[in-house]
């Protein structure tokens, strides 16, 4: 991909990723957040965190399945946007929902399992965001960096649990998100197994060259 095409692509992704915030801002400005604005904003940000997370995780499976690899160059950007939305989602909880009522918040983190796993998901995203720069990739070395960043799958599972556990009965969307995540994880797993098998075959072939 040419440099210009890459810049254009990234600009488009920036705009698309900021769009949910723009729409949210517009709805806030026009008083269109419904009867319970705080809950609306929390849920809006939580939904977009999860969507961006799924999109980030989907890029490798897309390459595996379809051989399209240019989206991988967007992974860092999407991941950082997912992290930013998660931070905003979390800030609403601290600033608005509980208004710095620390006792209440700590009790929630300990007692409410959906908060516990949400908190864990956000915490695990921090080292990934911190090590997202090129310099950090170099410092850690490719293999270690890749191993570390597999944590994103753990974050995905925690996010799915967070949503499943907080949603009231009758809602379908948490199951849809969980199903998409399972599919993506399944593809990754299948690919890993396939590669391991291929590698073993190669090694064996190298060891026994005399069969022919």
């Amino acid at each position, binding site marked *: 991909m040419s440099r210009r095409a890459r810049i254009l692509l990234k600009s488009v992704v920036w705009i698309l990723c900021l769009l949910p915030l723009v729409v949210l801002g517009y709805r806030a400005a026009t008083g269109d957040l*419904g009867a*319970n604005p705080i*809950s609306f904003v929390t849920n809006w940000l939580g939904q977009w965190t999860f969507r961006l997370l799924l999109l980030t995780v989907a890029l490798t499976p897309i390459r595996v399945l379809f051989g399209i690899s240019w989206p991988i160059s967007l992974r860092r950007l999407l991941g950082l946007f997912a992290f930013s939305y998660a931070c905003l989602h979390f800030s609403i909880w601290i600033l608005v929902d509980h208004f710095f009522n620390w006792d*209440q918040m700590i009790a929630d983190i300990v007692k*409410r399992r959906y908060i516990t796993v949400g908190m864990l998901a956000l915490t695990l995203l921090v080292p990934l965001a911190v090590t997202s720069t090129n310099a950090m990739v170099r410092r850690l070395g490719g293999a270690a960096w890749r191993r570390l960043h597999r944590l994103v799958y753990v974050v995905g599972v925690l996010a799915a649990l967070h949503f499943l556990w907080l949603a*009231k009965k*009758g809602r379908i969307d948490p199951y849809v998100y969980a199903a998409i995540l399972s599919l993506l994880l399944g593809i990754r797993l299948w690919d890993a197994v396939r590669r391991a098998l291929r590698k073993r075959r190669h090694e064996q072939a190298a060891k026994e060259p005399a069969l022919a």
Partner: protein
Amino acid sequence: MLIKRAPMFKASEITDLKLYCNRREFMVGAAALALFPTVAAATSTPSGQPLKATRNPAFNNSDAATKFESATTYNNFYEFGVNKEDPARLAHTLRPRPWTVQVDGHVAKPKTYDVNDLLRLSPLEERVYALRCVEGWSMVIPWIGFPLASLLKRVEPTGQAKFVEFTTLLDPEQFPAQRKGLLNFSSLDWPYVEGLRLDEAMHPLTLLTVGMYGQVLPNQNGAPIRVVVPWKYGFKSAKSIVRIRLVSDQPKTAWEKAQPQEYGFYSNVNPMVDHPRWSQASERRIGEFLRRKTPMFNGYADQVGSLYAGMDLRKYF
């Protein structure tokens, strides 16, 4: 679609609009009323028409009433869907007339009432009640109705009657979420069933409700007839009731059947007993910014506390 119907109310029953507006300050409600001049009222569906009632000062609430718009657009009414916006969006599919309510079971005089007759059974009064949802939000709503006890006394419960079971309309034509979805998915086991102990049902606070904000009950709020039990979480107050049955055994309610560990039969508002997934200690009053503390029995402890004397409210949650 405008279907021509016979007038629901005699002209004498309809409050004069000017008088009504001067009487109270619910500007949003008043604006909504302005859209329904009395002439139009004769041909439109009953929801939204003014409904005359005398305010009962014994049942007031010092907090400001929730905006009419909020109370009619932010609803839990699973028959229309699980999202809060679904009821307002789909409410037009419900036909609140003609409508009958069957009152039977362990009673000396079972009877099926036309809802128009129920409206005339007892003087309508307006009462401002706090409404606390199990999800942690609350509203303050001026309801119109009369004590459920007035109806129950008429049918004369027998000695075997220990509980009252309410059944909501079952009709997938009128309630879209009662249609079977993908993979036979259904949020609840229809019809919706709720229940009260007989003494709870006879309690003067328990209101058989036909209106709110000076109007006939909007469809999304449980038209044409519902109960309001203000010291319990909102889902205990059954909507769009077609049957009231007096029974000897504790009814199995819809939410108990769905998630017994989360929704008990009593479901009294209790800041000390958390829902398994969230705290009930505080609530967000719709229209307010900060959470407020939830009072025991939603603020009605003086009136209803004695009903539960000696009961372990953690066990009977």
